[in-house]
């Protein structure tokens, strides 16, 4: 799918900070990206890079205190979500924007049946009565491929397997026909075989309803299979963004290159898998200038002095490939 002209969701310079004992943690520090209708945007990055906090910022569910979205705009269908009343925001959550999480084992309420949990969402947003809502819940369970949904609807989460629970989460998220589905590491806690099924399910539902998907993951393989466009995040910032084929064919940022190199699928037999040295810096003490410089082989004085802006890569502009590095020409040689 090509990038459409009017985005469904647009993040403009979003900043979400946490205020703790160690000072200000800039978990999300000036993130901008857009998702068009029907598009899948993959957001990739290591743990702690701010990708999940960005998603929670969109839903305005960053735990506060200590967290706060201090700046930026989150435009959903042209409306700035950050400016909405809490009541208006509640009408959007679960209805226009739905979310699924990493741990289906704990994300469902253990003391209510799965049917009840779907019914709650449907009744909240669609004003259906109990009977209709239950019918809708069964329909949704069937849609996500749960066998004998008429019986499963009355079961508790602990009676289902991990994959089934994630399907229930998806059924719950899809129950009000959202325009945007935020999937925060939806396959991380699942078996590899189940992972593929869940991703296929999300893709199939997307084709059917035309919704957009924001797929957050640390797994580049997942992105390669499902996303149209990719954002690579590092230390609270977007360091590279590109259409998916482009990113895998011609990565531009040293960090992206490092990530791709460390994929086991691309490793040569008999050789040690390359890794990126070091760890993501603590969000209260990011390095000056380029935040990746402490782990980058190209780093020099300029990197510490000035923060590189996100700039278009290569000759053909307009395909949306951009990266934030002072030495893009050299990085491509890596």
């Amino acid at each position, binding site marked *: 799918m090509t990038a459409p002209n009017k985005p469904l969701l647009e993040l403009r310079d979003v900043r979400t900070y946490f205020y703790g004992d160690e000072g200000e943690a800039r978990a999300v520090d000036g993130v901008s990206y857009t998702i068009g209708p029907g598009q899948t945007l993959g957001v990739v990055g290591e743990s702690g890079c701010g990708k999940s906090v960005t998603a929670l910022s969109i*839903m305005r*569910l960053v735990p506060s*205190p200590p967290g706060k979205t201090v700046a930026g705009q989150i435009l959903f269908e042209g409306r700035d979500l950050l400016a909405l009343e809490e009541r208006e925001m*509640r*009408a*959007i*959550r*679960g*209805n226009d924007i*739905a*979310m699924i*999480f990493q*741990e289906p084992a*704990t*994300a*469902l*309420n*253990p*003391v*209510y049946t799965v049917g009840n*949990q779907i019914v*709650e*969402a449907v009744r*909240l*947003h669609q004003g259906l009565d109990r009977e209709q809502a239950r019918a809708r819940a069964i329909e949704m369970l069937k849609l996500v491929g749960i066998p004998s949904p008429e019986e499963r609807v009355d079961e*508790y989460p*602990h009676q289902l397997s991990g994959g089934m629970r994630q399907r229930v*989460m998806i059924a*719950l998220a899809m129950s009000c026909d959202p325009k945007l589905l935020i999937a925060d590491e939806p396959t991380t806690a699942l078996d590899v075989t189940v992972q593929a099924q869940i991703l296929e399910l999300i893709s199939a539902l997307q084709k059917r309803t035309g919704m957009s998907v924001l797929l957050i993951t640390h797994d580049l393989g997942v992105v390669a299979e499902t996303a149209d466009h990719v954002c690579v995040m590092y230390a609270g910032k977007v360091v590279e963004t590109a259409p998916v084929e482009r990113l895998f064919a011609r990565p531009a940022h040293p960090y992206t290159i490092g990530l791709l190199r460390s994929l086991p699928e691309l490793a040569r037999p008999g050789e040690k898998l390359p890794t990126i040295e070091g760890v993501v810096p603590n969000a209260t003490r990011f390095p000056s200038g380029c935040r990746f410089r402490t782990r980058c082989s190209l780093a020099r004085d300029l990197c510490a002095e000035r923060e590189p802006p996100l700039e278009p890569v290569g000759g053909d502009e307009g395909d949306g490939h951009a990266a934030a590095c002072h030495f893009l020409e050299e990085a491509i040689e890596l």
Partner: protein
Amino acid sequence: MWIYILRRVLYNLPVFLGIILFLMAALRVKDPIPGMLGKFPEPEDYARMEKALGLDQPFLVQYASFLADIVTLDFDQESYDKPGLQAGEIVKDAIPPTMAITVPALMLSTLISVCVALISAFYRGRLPDRLLVFLAVIGMSVSFVVYIIIGQYFGAYRLNELLGPGNGLFAIEGFDTSEPGWWVHYCLLPVLISVIVSMGYDTRFYRAVMVEESGKDYIVTAQAKGASKKKIMFVHMLKNAMIPIITRVMITLPFLITGSFLLEMYFNIPGMGNNLIRAINANDFPVIQAFGAIFAAFFIVTNILTDVAYALVDPRVRLS
């Protein structure tokens, strides 16, 4: 469900038999008769008492006969301290006054504490929460006896002085259930004191439970669904929090029947605690033994009720 209950009962039965065995053995380690008749009783008095208490029988026979007493709830041995009364009658008469205090006290303190804890958790980290936690810590740091003394001074002395002689609202002696309004007169003040004392502990405990639950993933799911904060607290959080709340309430349940020794002593309420202390002081062997059996039975029943309550609230319990 019935099978589950039956299984819980069967599991607890040997425990109960063991407790009774231990209770009876413990009371017989030292010969109880000299405690009643003096150090050097006449041999014929000794023999009569031994026969009356059944101590002349082999232990197993005594055990069986006492178990029969428990099953029929008929402790027919005569009290030593209160001649003419059977041990069972003393226990039976002591239960209502105790429960007149403990039942309302437990219900009130649990209800209020859970509500306060919910408010506290709702405003977590903000001024109302900090204020409530502060008050709870102060509340639990003051001794029980201080509350009793202050309560009696202001409630039963200064207030009654104010109302004039004969119109006193609270009394601290002469417990009598035949008067109209006896409950307010004799029980309300100790109940209030009891509630205040337990509120500090309970509030802090329940608040910790709520705070823990409010950090769970399913809360975020409920938020992402678009549920309101109130709905999340009362529908999602409270039902999950019921599991530790029930545990706590159940642990305090035996207090319903053992009663508060301190309150009963200070307010001269002829309840279980008061009677038990009196029986111990008087070496009243049959009464002590009957009390021991009743307390043990109550603990066991509470245990079973706890398990059943878990199963009702938490669907995960039923499978195991």
